[in-house]
């Protein structure tokens, strides 16, 4: 594929997205309000001020020192000790990890420490890539971020919720309302239509059936899958499945979208389409997205790149913003 072709394709897909964006923008705003109304807030949500607008675009990486006084003490300490992450205003911080250690087989001869004290902050509306080779601890970190697992040591606040203190039931609720997962293998529930798949997180959030179905249709329309909403996963192509999965991840308007190698199983063309959807969610809806990948090109597209090696963040830098073409 030559460069011209690639650029052309890219611009094509952008145009396509803009069209649909216009069609759905108003609806989406409404829907988001809807969700915040219906989904009961987690008790701890107010603990860390969440006055920042949920959707709306952020002015990137600006407000720092002014808000520093308002951060809790430990936050300040963290900032002093570990200066390598970008400091941001606390009200803006969605993921706040400090000294995360994860050990397996604790107390046994084969005890294994996978993460050796990860410090990581992610601002609301940021598009962050986590890269690293296999075995670097990416997946373990993703499990921590996604509330699928608990750290052995350290502090983790997700959208103001102390994850260390959360019980299993709380973790379920957090996964349900604050995190949208996009997996490499799509993980759509088999024998269940695209529509029902998108409805699932809302079902677990306790949303009434009619609302659920309405929002699921809108989300599927957003990823241009409305004409396939009655299809079951085995009747969809990889790209289509991933689009449904993204719609599903958006269902409860989560604080972060956690994408684990979302294009890993797709050909480059389809992968491009999926990445464009993420960009769109980020640019137009201000979604916080964490992309876990081992593709340096895809990582470059993000605002910030964290490189993980042997359980440590060894490098943190801005992404070039250059859109990979394939």
């Amino acid at each position, binding site marked *: 594929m030559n460069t011209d072709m690639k650029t052309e394709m890219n611009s094509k897909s952008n145009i396509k997205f803009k069209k649909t964006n216009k069609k759905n923008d108003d609806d989406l705003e409404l829907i988001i309000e809807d969700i915040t109304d219906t989904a009961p807030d987690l008790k701890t949500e107010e603990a860390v001020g969440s006055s920042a607008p949920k959707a709306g675009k952020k002015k990137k990486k600006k407000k720092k020192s002014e808000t520093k006084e308002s951060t809790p003490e430990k936050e300040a300490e963290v900032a002093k000790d570990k200066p390598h992450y970008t400091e941001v205003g606390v009200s803006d911080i969605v993921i706040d990890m400090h000294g995360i250690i994860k050990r397996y087989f604790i107390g046994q001869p084969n005890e294994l420490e996978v993460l050796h004290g990860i410090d990581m902050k992610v601002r609301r509306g940021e598009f962050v890539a986590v890269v690293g080779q296999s075995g670097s601890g990416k997946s373990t970190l993703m499990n921590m971020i*996604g509330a699928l697992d608990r750290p052995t040591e350290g502090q983790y606040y997700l959208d103001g919720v102390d994850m260390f203190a959360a019980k299993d039931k709380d973790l379920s609720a957090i*996964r349900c309302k604050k995190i949208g997962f996009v997996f490499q293998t799509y993980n759509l529930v088999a024998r269940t239509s695209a529509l029902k798949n998108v409805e699932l997180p809302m079902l677990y959030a306790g949303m009434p059936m009619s609302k659920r179905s309405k929002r699921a249709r809108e989300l599927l329309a957003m990823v241009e899958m409305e004409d396939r909403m009655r299809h079951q996963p085995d009747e969809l192509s990889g790209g289509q499945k991933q689009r449904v999965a993204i719609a599903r991840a958006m269902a409860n308007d989560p604080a972060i979208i956690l994408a684990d190698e979302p294009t890993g199983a797709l050909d480059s063309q389809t992968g491009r389409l999926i990445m464009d959807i993420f960009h769109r969610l980020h640019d137009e809806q201000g979604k916080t997205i964490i992309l876990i990948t081992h593709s340096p090109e895809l990582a470059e597209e993000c605002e910030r790149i964290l490189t993980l090696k042997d359980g440590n963040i060894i490098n943190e830098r801005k992404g070039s913003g250059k859109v990979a073409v394939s």
Partner: protein
Amino acid sequence: MLFLENLLLAFTALLTNKMRSLLTMLGIIIGIGSVIAIVTVGNSLTNSITSEMEGMGANNVIVGIQQRESEDEVKETGMRYEAYYRRKSPSDDDLITKDMIKALIAEFPDDIEDVSVESGLGETRVEKGRNYANISLMGVNPGYFKANNIEMSAGSMISERAYEAGKAVCIVSDRFVNNMFGGDNSKAIGHDIEIEMSGSSHKYYVFTIVGVYTYKTEQFEMTSAKDSQTFVYIPLNTALKKNHAKGFTDFTIMTKTGVDSDEFATRVKGFMNRYYHNNKDFTLVTFSLASMVSAMTSMLGTVSTAISIVAAISLVVGGIGVMNIMLVSISERTREIGTRKALGATNGSIRVQFIMESIVLCLVGGILGILVGLIGGSIGAKALGYAASPTPGSIIGALLFSMAVGVFFGFYPANKAAKMNPIDALRYE
């Protein structure tokens, strides 16, 4: 909230693996089906026996004499049945006399509707040319016909005068007429029959047929209609003249409507004991048909309960099959469980989902089992010659029980699913 969704999910899962679901349900179907079939047949049997007994007169009280079991004898031999080997026939002094019956009727005029007394003269075969009929010759009083619901099909009843005078008249069954007169009642009535009693006391009687009664087919007929033995009824006094009997071993009291026959039986025993409390060999016993019916019903109930319990064991086996297939299903759907957990499903909602699936599996099996049982039970009851009467209670019970099997055997697999670690579940290959 999740109920409808779970129900839908459960049915989807059931329909996805139709063959597997059916095979799994087979245990439940057989278990529930056999219980329902047994209960249906048992209930049909009970109903028909009860109605037959009621036809015989549930309000009847039977009074009879019974050989006393000598306590000494029991002590000596240590075996109760010894007494039966030394059974002796009652002497004339031991029998219930006409006077005793008269006194009884005089004592309880408000309770006794009528009394049925009989005295047998023996059994034989009546032959004429190539025709024959097996008969039992019996002297009866007018109350006998009422007590036994005997209906006349031709001719007339034995007249009062004939009873009193002990005339040589008789009433025969329609089967007797079939055998001896080719079914022609007009030919039979007025005709004399000769009855010869063989054996040690060789006797020869001649009676004139005055009426024909409708023979009631017995439940378990061992012989063909032609060979079956029917009664030839003669007036009681005629019989007593011939066999020189001084009394009766038993008689039947028909109570008036509204009288508690069970309680009345005790009162009769109390009254009649005055004649028997000094009798060394015989004592008087009474029992009501109602109590016999209830004893028989409860016995049948016990039998069908016992068989049902055996059948219910097969339900447990079926339940184990359900548990097994649920475990298979859960391991097949590990990734789905992981995904659901990642999407926010709590352990509780996963548990409920799979328990629901197990319940639906068992419940559908139970419903199919009920249908199979009802069909099987109806066929069984028909084969035995009764009207099938399924009990609603057993059907509801079967439904509840199959649900309970679903909950019980679904819990362990569902709990296993609920406790899965989402990370491991998501990565499961």
